[in-house]
């Protein structure tokens, strides 16, 4: 697996220490790297969104609402 060149984590409020640790562990396991950029995005409404290179993994409230709307 190639190490991603860019990983970006978005949340509404800053990640806690435990959350950062857990997330790093997850990303290291899945992508081989635990280095990521963080930013705050109130539009998410809650939850978390991770962008790895050009792929987005959306576990935010906004993403869930958008999925419901499509259905």
């Amino acid at each position, binding site marked *: 697996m190639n190490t991603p060149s860019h990983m970006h984590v978005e949340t509404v409020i800053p990640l806690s220490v435990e959350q950062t640790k857990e997330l790093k562990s*997850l990303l290291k396991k899945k992508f081989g790297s635990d280095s990521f950029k963080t930013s705050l995005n109130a539009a998410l*409404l*809650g939850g978390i969104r991770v962008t790895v290179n050009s792929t987005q993994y959306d*576990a935010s409230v906004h993403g869930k609402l958008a999925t419901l*709307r499509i259905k």
Partner: protein
Amino acid sequence: MEIKLVQILFQVVNFGVVLGALTVLLYKPILKMLDERAKKVEEADKAAQETLREKEEIDALKKKSKVQADRDAAKLLEKAREQAAELKKELAKKAKDELHQEHEKALSVWKQEKSSMMSEMQKEFASAVFAVTEKLIGQSVDKKAHTKLIDQGIKELAKIV
């Protein structure tokens, strides 16, 4: 009075001659003329009867032809009536079919439009709900709830990544 035999004889002869002359010169020609006239009358009568007979034949033929012509005309009229009735039936059926097709077409268009409108309304409703929900969530979620949501989000990421 003295009867003169010679005179009587002479008169008789005279009479006979006159009679003979009259017979030859008058009686026979007149008789002949009468015979001829009778023949002519008979011939004319025959000709008249022949003409009458021919007229009757022609009349009979005319009558027969008229009867036949009437029959033919009646047949043609009946046939024309049947054809007209058939045509009327066909036209009525065609009109009914066309009306039915138009009705089906209009119904189909209406259904499509209804479906499209319903879909549009659902989208708009969903958008409205989405907007309201966004606003409500944005206003009601506190820090504790956000932390919990992030924890849940990380767990979900573990499944989807």
